[in-house]
C-alpha cells in the first residue's frame, strides 16, 4: 500500500508571531520555521504503518517556495521514502493546495493520504476535507487512531462530545489530531541518509493547476491586549475580589 503525506512549512510553534507595523501581514523575517506539528504526526503515522508492514512506500509532498524542501527532508529523515516539492512563490490558500494535492494524488495513486488537521499559521483546518471532496474520497478527520485492514481504514475521530469511529473505503483521506501518536526524533544517520533520498520538483503547470484565490487579505492587526491584572495574597482575598470587584460569583 502506498501512502501520500502532505507537510507544510510553518512558523515554529514556540515562536510568538508579531504583526508588521504597517498591518499588511505578520512579520516572518528571521523567524524560526519548522514542519507543522500536525504534519509531523502525519509522517509518524505513515512510518508506523510501514513498520507494521501495512504500507510499502511513503511519498511526502509540500507546496511552496524552495525552502519547503527543508521540511520534506525532515520527513525523509523520519522515514518517508521520497519527496515531491511543488514549486510556487504564490500565496496558497487551502483550496489551491487541495487542487495541487488532487493532481499529485492522480499521478501517484496512493491508497491513503494523511494530512495534518490544521496548519498552525492559518489555523484553517480545511485542506484534507477539500482534497477529499475534489477527489471524491471519504475522510477521517481529527484522527486519534487509524487501523487499516481489508481494504478499509477504521478511523477514530476526536469530536466535540468525545470519540467517533468511522469506516472508510480506500483510498481515503485522514487528518491527524494530537493524540494519534508521538512523533520520533530523526537520528543523525537518518538525517544523512535523507539527503540522498529522491526529491522531485514540479510546478503547478506540470500538474495542470492554475492557482487562484477568492480571498484577499485586507489587514492584519494584533489582538486586543488584556489589562494587566493583580496578584492576590490569599484565597480569602481572591474570593472577596471575585464577589465584590468582578462580581462573577
Amino acid at each position: 500500500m502506498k501512502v501520500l503525506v502532505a507537510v507544510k512549512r510553518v512558523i515554529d510553534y514556540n515562536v510568538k508571531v508579531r504583526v508588521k507595523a504597517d498591518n499588511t501581514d505578520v512579520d516572518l523575517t528571521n523567524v524560526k520555521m519548522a514542519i507543522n506539528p500536525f504534519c509531523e504526526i502525519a509522517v509518524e503515522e505513515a512510518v508506523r504503518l510501514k513498520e507494521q508492514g501495512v504500507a510499502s512506500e511513503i511519498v511526502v509532498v509540500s507546496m511552496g517556495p524552495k525552502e519547503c524542501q527543508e521540511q520534506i527532508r525532515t520527513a525523509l529523515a523520519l522515514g518517508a521514502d521520497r519527496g515531491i516539492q511543488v514549486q510556487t512563490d504564490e500565496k496558497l490558500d487551502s483550496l489551491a493546495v487541495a487542487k495541487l494535492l488532487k493532481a499529485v494524488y492522480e499521478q501517484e495513486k496512493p491508497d491513503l493520504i494523511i494530512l495534518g488537521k490544521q496548519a498552525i499559521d492559518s489555523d484553517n483546518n480545511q485542506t484534507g476535507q477539500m482534497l477529499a471532496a475534489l477527489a471524491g474520497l471519504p475522510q477521517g478527520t481529527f484522527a486519534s487512531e487509524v487501523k487499516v485492514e481489508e481494504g478499509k481504514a477504521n478511523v477514530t475521530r476526536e469530536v466535540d462530545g468525545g470519540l467517533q469511529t468511522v469506516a472508510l473505503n480506500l483510498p481515503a483521506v485522514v487528518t491527524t489530531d494530537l493524540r494519534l501518536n508521538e512523533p520520533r526524533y530523526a537520528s543523525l544517520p537518518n538525517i544523512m541518509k535523507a539527503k540522498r533520498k529522491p526529491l522531485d520538483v514540479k510546478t503547478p503547470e506540470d500538474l495542470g493547476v492554475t492557482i487562484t484565490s477568492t480571498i484577499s487579505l485586507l489587514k492584519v492587526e494584533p489582538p486586543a491586549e488584556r489589562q494587566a491584572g493583580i496578584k492576590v495574597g490569599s484565597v480569602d482575598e481572591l474570593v472577596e475580589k471575585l464577589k465584590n470587584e468582578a462580581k462573577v460569583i
Partner: protein
Amino acid sequence: MSILVLAEHNNASLNAATLAVVAAAKAAGDDIHVLVAGSGCGAVAEEAAQVESVSKVLVSDDPAYAHQLAENISTLVAEVGKGYSHILAAATTTGKNVMPRVAALLDVDQISDIVGVDSADTFRRPIYAGNAIATVQSSAPVKVITVRGTAFDNVAATGGTAAVEQVAAAGDAETSAFIGEEMAESDRPELTAAGIVVSGGRGMGNGENFEILYSLADKLGAAVGASRAAVDAGFVPNDMQVGQTGKIVAPELYVAVGISGAIQHLAGMKESKIIVAINKDEEAPIFQVADYGLVADLFEAVPELTGKV
C-alpha cells in the same frame, strides 16, 4: 440574496451553537434560512422554525444523514446552498468536517472561524493561535464560512415563525460508514456554553486529582476543561481540551489551575471576561493574562477555595 445556515443537532434537538451562527448571519444579511439535515429530525426542524430572525427552514430527512457523515451532508449542502449568498455553520468539529467539502464542491475558498462581520463580504478571523486578527474580503459568489460561537451573542431560541419545507436528499456516497461513538456523559454544563469554566493542567498530577476541580466546579455550577498536557497524559478525555486546537471558551469566569499558559492554551480562553490563575510558579506566563493571580500550591488552594465560595 439569502443566507443558508446549516443547523447543528443530534436529530432530537437543536444545538445552541446554531443560535450564534444565526447571529453572525444577521450581521451579513437579512433573509436567513436554516437547513436541517438528519434522520428522524422533525423535532429539530420545529425548533429551528422558532429561532429569531429565521424566515424559512429546509429539512432533508434521510438515513444517510443520521450521523452527519461529511461525505453525504456536503453534497446536500452544496446542492441546496448554491443559490445563496452565504452558507454558514458553527466552527464545531461537525462544521469543520463538512464545510470545507462544501466549499471545494462549489469551487470557492472557505473562511474558517470568523469572530467578526464587517460587511457582507468582509470578515475578521484569528490566525497564528490568535496572535493576530486578519481582516479578509471574499469575492466568492457563495461565501462558505464557519463561525466561532463565543464571538457572537446567541439570537433568541424562540419568537420566530418560519415556514418548514422538505427538500429531497442528495443520496448516500457509500464511501464511509458510522461504526460507533463514545460520548462523554456529564451533568455539568457544556464547556463552550458555560458561564464559569474551571480548567486543570499538568500540575494536577493525575486523573484522580481532578476530583478536587470537579468539587469546585460543582460548587460554582461550572464546566471543567483541561490543557493539552492534561489530556495527553490521560488525566481527562480529549473533549475537555481548551486551546488553539481544542475548544474555544469565553466564559464570565475562567479559573486556570496548574496550567502554565502556553500560547496554544491562551488561544482558547483569553477572551474570557475574568481570568483567575492558580499556579505555584510566580513566573508562569498564565499570570500575564490573569485578572487575579494566586501563587500557591493548588492542592491547598483549590480545596480552600471550594470551601469558601
